[in-house]
C-alpha cells in the first residue's frame, strides 16, 4: 500500500523518524521487563495486520514484529512515564489506578490519541487511521469524551489524515456567528479567562501609551477575535480624555484577519464604530488580509508619522508564520516598525516551551493544555452557575477551532522559543504596574468561578487554574 504523503511538512519528519525510533528502542530496554496493567489493552487485531505491512517499508534492518510487539507495551509504559513527568491533571493519574471502566476508557482514549500522534511522527498514517477508526467507537460524540476535549483532538487528527475531503475555506453563516457570540458571552461570564486576557493587555497598552506626547494611537492587532477588547479600551480612553487637556486620544486599529473572516469583519467594524461614536471618540478600523501580510510583511499595514504604535500578538500568528519566513524575520520586521509596546497574549500555554519538531510532543502539550482549560470551564465556572450546558457550547464553538488549529500546527514545530526570539531582536520585557496587579486580583474576586489565581512568572502576568498556567500576558519594548 502506498503511504499517504499529504503534508509537505511531514516530509521533514522523515528525517526525525529514524531518530525517534532509536530513542524508543533504547528506552524500551529499560522497560522491557516491566509489567503494565494496560498490557491487555493492546491494539485490536485489525490494526495488527496493518503493522506488518507498514513496518516492512519504514524500518530497514529492524525486525518489524519485534518493534511492534515491544512498542505497544514499551510505548504504553513510556506514556505512563511521560505522564508523570508532564504532571498532568489528577484525572489522568486517577484513571491510571482506578478500576472504573469509564475512567479507564477515557484514559485509554488519550493513550490511543497519543499513539496516533506518534504515528504522524513516523509517517505511519495507515496505523494512525486505524487507531482513530477504533477510537470512533469510544468517542462517538463530544459528550462521550473522557474529558479534555479528546473528541476534538480525534477529529483534528482525522481531518489531517483526510485532507482530500477537507472543506475549502468558507464564510461563517449568521446563525453560526450568533451562536459564537452567545457562547463567548457565556464564556466571559463563567470564566475569568477572556476578561483577564483583555484587561491585562489593555492595561499594558494604557501604561505604555500614556503620556501627552501624542494623542494618536495606532494598534496593530493580529488576533482581534470579536473586537471586545477595544470596547473597554475605548471606555478607558474616553475617561482619560475627560481629564486630560488634550481631549480624548484618537484611536486607529489595524486588524490582520483571514479571508474566512469576511462577515465577522463587517460586523466588528459596525459595532466598534458605533461604540466609539457613542463615546464621542474618534476611531477608525482597517482590516488587512493575512495573506497580504504574509507576502508584504509590515508594508501591508499603513503607518502614519506621529502615531504611537502598539502591536498585539498571540500564538496564532506565530504558528502561521512558521510556514513562511519564521518568527525571526517577523520579529525583526516588527522591531523596524518601532512600536511603543508589543503585547503578547499567550492563549495556548506556550510559556517557556521551546519549539520541538516532534508532532507527538507538540500534540501532547496541546492535549495537556486543553484538558486543563476544559477542566477549568467545567469544574470552576460552569458548576458554580449550573451551566454545564454552556460549557459544552463553549467547548464546541470556541475551543474546537483552536484545537483544530493547534493540532494542524503540531507538525510545523508549533511553539517557537518566542521569548528568545524577542530577546534576540533586542526587545526587553516591561514590568507590570501596581494597577495591573490590583486589577487582575480584583477581577478574580469578582468572578464566581473558583480555583483561579494570578501569578507572576518573570515578566508575565499569568492566570492559573490550580497551579496550571492558562493565560500569560507579557509586554515588551524595543
Amino acid at each position, binding site marked *: 500500500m502506498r503511504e499517504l504523503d499529504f503534508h509537505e511538512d511531514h516530509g521533514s519528519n522523515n528525517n526525525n523518524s529514524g531518530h525517534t525510533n532509536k530513542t524508543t528502542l533504547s528506552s524500551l530496554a529499560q522497560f522491557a521487563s516491566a509489567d503494565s496493567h494496560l498490557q491487555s489493552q493492546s491494539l485490536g487485531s485489525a490494526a495488527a495486520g496493518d503493522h506488518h505491512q507498514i513496518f516492512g517499508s519504514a524500518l530497514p534492518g529492524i525486525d518489524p514484529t519485534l518493534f511492534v510487539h515491544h512498542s505497544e507495551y514499551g510505548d504504553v509504559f513510556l506514556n505512563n512515564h511521560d505522564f508523570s513527568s508532564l504532571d498532568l491533571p489528577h484525572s489522568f493519574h486517577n484513571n491510571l489506578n482506578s478500576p472504573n471502566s469509564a475512567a479507564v476508557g477515557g484514559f485509554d482514549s488519550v493513550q490511543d490519541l497519543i499513539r496516533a500522534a506518534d504515528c504522524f511522527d513516523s509517517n505511519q498514517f495507515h496505523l494512525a487511521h486505524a487507531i482513530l477508526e477504533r477510537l470512533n467507537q469510544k468517542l462517538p460524540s463530544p459528550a462521550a469524551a473522557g474529558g479534555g476535549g479528546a473528541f476534538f483532538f480525534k477529529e483534528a487528527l482525522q481531518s489531517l489524515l483526510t485532507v482530500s475531503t477537507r472543506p475549502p475555506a468558507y464564510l461563517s453563516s449568521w*446563525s453560526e456567528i450568533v451562536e459564537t*457570540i452567545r457562547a463567548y458571552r457565556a464564556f466571559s461570564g463563567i470564566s475569568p479567562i477572556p*476578561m483577564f486576557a483583555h484587561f491585562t493587555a489593555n492595561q499594558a497598552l494604557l501604561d505604555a501609551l500614556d503620556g501627552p506626547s501624542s494623542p494618536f494611537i495606532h494598534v496593530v492587532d493580529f488576533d482581534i477575535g470579536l473586537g*471586545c477588547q477595544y470596547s473597554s479600551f475605548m*471606555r*478607558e480612553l474616553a475617561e482619560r480624555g475627560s481629564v486630560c487637556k488634550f481631549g480624548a486620544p484618537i484611536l486607529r486599529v489595524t486588524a490582520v484577519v483571514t479571508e474566512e473572516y469576511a462577515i465577522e469583519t463587517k460586523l466588528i467594524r459596525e459595532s466598534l464604530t458605533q461604540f466609539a461614536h457613542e463615546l464621542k471618540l474618534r476611531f477608525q478600523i482597517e482590516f488587512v488580509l493575512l495573506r497580504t501580510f504574509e507576502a508584504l510583511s509590515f508594508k501591508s499595514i499603513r503607518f502614519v508619522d506621529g502615531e504611537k504604535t502598539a502591536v498585539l500578538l498571540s500564538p496564532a500568528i506565530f504558528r502561521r508564520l512558521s510556514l513562511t519566513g519564521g518568527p525571526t524575520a517577523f520579529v525583526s520586521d516588527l522591531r523596524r516598525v518601532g512600536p511603543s509596546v508589543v503585547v503578547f497574549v499567550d492563549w495556548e500555554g506556550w510559556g517557556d516551551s521551546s519549539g520541538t519538531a516532534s508532532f507527538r510532543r507538540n500534540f501532547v502539550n496541546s492535549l495537556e493544555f486543553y484538558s486543563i482549560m476544559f477542566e477549568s470551564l467545567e469544574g470552576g465556572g460552569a458548576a458554580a452557575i449550573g451551566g454545564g450546558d454552556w460549557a459544552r457550547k463553549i467547548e464546541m464553538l470556541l475551543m474546537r477551532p483552536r484545537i483544530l488549529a493547534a493540532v494542524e500546527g503540531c507538525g510545523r514545530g508549533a511553539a517557537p522559543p518566542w521569548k528568545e526570539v524577542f530577546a534576540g531582536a533586542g526587545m526587553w520585557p516591561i514590568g507590570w504596574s501596581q494597577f495591573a496587579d490590583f486589577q487582575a486580583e480584583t477581577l478574580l474576586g*469578582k468572578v464566581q468561578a473558583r480555583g483561579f489565581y494570578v501569578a507572576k512568572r518573570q515578566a508575565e502576568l499569568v492566570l492559573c487554574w490550580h497551579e496550571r498556567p492558562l493565560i500569560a500576558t507579557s509586554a515588551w519594548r524595543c
Partner: protein
Amino acid sequence: MYSALHSLPLDGSSIVGDFQGSLDGTNLPGDACLVLTTDPKPRLRWTAELHERFIDAVTQLGGPDKATPKTIMRTMGVKGLTLYHLKSHLQKYRLGRQSCKESTESSKDAASVAESQDTGSSASTSSRIAAQDLNDGYQVTEALRVQMEVQRRLHEQLEVQRRLQLRIEAQGKYLQSILEKACKALNDQAVATAGLEAAREELSELAIKVSNECQGMAPIDTIRMPSLSELAAALESKSASSNVPARIGDCSTESCLTSIGSPVSPMGMSPQAAAAMKKRSRSVFGNGDSLPLDGTTMRHEVEWMMNNMA
C-alpha cells in the same frame, strides 16, 4: 497680676484650686508677665500667648535646634523667665517637634487638638499638649501613619474596582450590541429566505396552474423562471410578499399571471379550487426536491442579496 488659677502640672493630674474668673489665662497684658501658680512650689504656667512668644523667639533664632535657652530668654524679654523654665520647655518642644515631623497629619491633628483645647477650655495649657505629644506622640503618629497607609490602599483599591467595573460594563454593553446586530442580520436573512420561499412557492403554484388551466397557452418550458435579481428587486421594493407574483411577469403567460389579483383568488377559479390547488402545490414542495435551488447555494445567494441590499 498673679491670680489663683487652675494649674495642670506636667504629669497631667489636675489640682483644683480657687478660680477667679476675672482673669483667665488668655489675656495677658501687652507687656508680658508671667502667671505663676499658687501652690507651695511655684511653677510657671506656659500659657498660649507665652508659648507663642516662645515660638516666635525660637523661629527668630533659626529653629529649636539652633536656639539656646539663653538666647531665647534674651529674645523673649519676659521678666521672671529663668533659664530653667526655658531649658525644660525647649527640650519638650524639640521632642514634640521631632515626633510631629514624622507625620504631618499628626501634627495637624495635634495642632487642631491643641487649638480646640486652647480655645475651648480655660484649664488647658499648651504644656499639657506638649506633654501629651511627648507621651503619646510616638504612638499617635505611628497609628496615624498606619491608618494613612491603609487609607491609601483602600483608595487605590476603590479606584481599581471602579475602573474595573467600568471596563466590565463596557465589554458587556459591546457584546450585547454585537449580538443584537448579528441577530438582526440573521433575522433579515430569515425574512429574506422566507420571502424567497414564499415567492418560489407562488411561482411554482402558478406554473402548475398555468400548466393545468391555461391550455393552449405556451408550454411550461417557455415560462421563464424569473432570475434572482428580479426576485431581489421585487423583495426590495415591497415588504409584504403577497403580490410578488404580480410583479414578476416577463414570460409569455404574462397576461395570465398579471391578471391574477391575489394569490387567494386566482382568475377564473373558485376559492375552493384554488385552495385545493395550493394544497397540491404544497405537497409537491413537501418532497423538497422540486426546489430548483438547494440549501447551501441558496444561502450564498441570500448572502449575496444581503450584501447588495446593505
